[in-house]
């Protein structure tokens, strides 16, 4: 059973990993990363590291991939051609070299420690997170298991910090909503100060660019909004640029 789970999840992991580098669309690549991370979580369950599995799903598959997607969406998804640009010269060759080296290293480590790998969970003496049936018929309660210990610590010694963290998250949400919310009523003109940094004026859209679908972000803007902002801000930065 364990072997079947291992091979299935290993296949998922490898397929996901391949997908990350093969798929053209960055969003699809990020989603296949989820498959890889999910497969790793299944492997953790297979090894009875339930807490690690949960954290793997929550932190990696949940938060980090969402962050990836967030950045991809901000940068723009229709930039498939950027994949062919190489920021570092010969980076593909280097990557191939590095991958080969890594494979050899793993193989060497595998050979060197071949005798030590048993495939058994290593925490026999620390008790695993389910009750153990003793030979004489009684069961040892799972009081010292990972998750129980963690819960115990969270709700006894660290309960204050835990509650404060909950409050902190609430406050972060309130603040983020306030900062992101548009002011009521019409847009007020921005002050006439030209910042010395970062904010750029919207590029003038030429007719050829406007008809060309691959012209970039400026062409994608809602035309109504652009005119409102242009009128209100007298050619200064748009509200989107500020936000």
């Amino acid at each position, binding site marked *: 059973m364990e072997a079947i789970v291992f091979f299935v999840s290993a296949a998922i992991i490898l397929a996901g990993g391949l997908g990350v580098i093969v798929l053209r669309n960055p969003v699809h690549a990020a989603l296949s990363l989820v498959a890889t991370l999910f497969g790793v979580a299944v492997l953790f369950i297979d090894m009875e590291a339930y807490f690690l599995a949960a954290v793997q799903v929550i932190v990696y598959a949940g938060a980090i991939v969402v962050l990836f997607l967030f950045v991809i969406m901000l940068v723009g998804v229709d930039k498939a051609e950027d994949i062919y640009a190489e920021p570092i010269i010969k980076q593909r060759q280097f990557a191939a070299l590095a991958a080969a080296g890594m494979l050899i290293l793993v193989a060497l480590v595998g050979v060197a420690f071949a005798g030590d790998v048993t495939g058994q969970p290593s925490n026999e003496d620390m008790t695993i997170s389910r009750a153990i049936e003793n030979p004489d018929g009684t069961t040892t309660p799972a009081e010292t298991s990972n998750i129980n210990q963690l819960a115990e610590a969270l709700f006894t010694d660290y309960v204050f910090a835990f509650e*404060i963290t909950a409050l902190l998250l609430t406050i972060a949400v309130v*603040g*983020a909503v306030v900062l992101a919310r548009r*002011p009521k009523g019409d847009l007020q003109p921005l002050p006439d100060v030209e910042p010395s940094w970062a904010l750029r004026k919207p590029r003038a859209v030429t007719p050829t660019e406007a008809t060309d679908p691959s012209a970039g972000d400026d062409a994608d803007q809602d035309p109504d909004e652009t005119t409102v902002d242009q009128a209100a801000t007298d050619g200064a930065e748009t509200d989107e640029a500020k936000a």
Partner: protein
Amino acid sequence: MLATVLAEVAPFVRPHIDWHAVAPELTLLAVGAILTLIDIVWLERGRKLTSSLAGFGLLLPLIPIVTLAVSDSDTRVMFDGAYVIDDYSLVLKAMFLLTGYVVVLLSTNYIGEGDYWENEYYGLLVSSILGMVVMASSRDLISIFVALELLSIPAYMLATWRKRDVRSNEAGLKYYLMGVFASAIMLYGMSLVYGVAGSTLLTEINAALSEGGSSEAVVTLGIVFVVVGFAFKVSAFPFHTWSPDTYEGAPTPVTAFLAVGSKAAGFVALMSLVVVGFLGRDDVFGPLFWVLAAGSMTFGNVMALRQKNIIRLMAYSGVAQAGFMLAPLAVAGTGGTSADTSISAILTYLLIYAAMNLGAFAVIISVARKTETAELESYNGLFTTAPVLAVFMTLFLASLAGIPPLGGWFAKFSVFTALTNADTGAGYALAVVAAINAVVAFGYYGRLALRMWVEEPYLGDKAPIKVPVALGFALVLTAVITVAFGVYPPVATHFTDVTLVAGV
């Protein structure tokens, strides 16, 4: 299935919670929640009441603080010593609440008249103060970190509250990035310290670090990183770079809050960490604080001499003042009573600094209401246009400079006492550096005072300045405290003569 699993689990023992001891925090939490939710119920109608509600709400937790202070049991310890209520923490809690109250007074007109979200502003302000109140009692790495984040994250957002102003956005972003960077460094340091000590409790860390035998490099790195993380928070040289820009861009009441509350909270964390946690490793933190203190005093003063903007001047003067407050920590570990003397000196300095700095910001806000600029020139001839404000400002500036018999003088005096009390070469050397800097500081404070009394009015505009009631009350309150602490120092020492109890 679930029932059998639950049956196997050992029975859950509720942690001991002393509800009287956490009453101030709970009250403050309730006030913050009400402030945030009231907008949903009352919509626009509650606008006028919000700031008074926030003000009185911040004074409300003082009641449990007073009952705790007069109650029989001196020290209350919870969670194995992670959360300690002693005289030290009660004094600081009261200070943070009063600071918050004065900041609300400063904000009332500023936030009410601008195009700002009022309820959320006060809600975030209250939660930031809750973080400071929690910080005062934290004696555990995790509590300290969570308290730091609770007080910082609302502050990041408050700094960028003037959403339509590019400089405010810059201020918030800079503060946020620098703050997160500092937190990361500090967390790394904390993880190293935890790795050596095997516990997050400061008392056990002290035991583990003093014992020796652990890797020197890891201990040194851990302590240095933790201290550097908080040096960002208190804007000590060379980690002060965010402060002038953030102070300038943020709404002025928020600047006052950052300059006083946020900075004080950083010092509270440093005091708890150093005196309870790292005291045995004087060889590591002593020289570190010596350099930070001397550098902050000197650099802050030199830069302040060259400023043309009052807010930036206050920012650099704040860096210099932070140097004065860091100085006693450099000699805190020299044995004898030096730890207690240092704590008392810093506490005295913090109380007086809060009063005089908030007062100076109250004048700055009042003046900017008319002149709408923060250039130093706008203070020219303030005596002719607003004689009362000019007198108040002179009072606060003189106190900041340390002229007797005002509070600032006594604050500097207690720092010198702590430094010389240690009776070490490093202590005397730092006292000399501090003395030189105290004289240099006269340069910019005095020049500003001179502008108000001697020069012709700014732009020839002799129209008087109207001071709203809230601002006026803040001015009187801070001025009374500043003068009282200087004229009769026992008022201050009565509160600040505490020992930092390690708990358990």
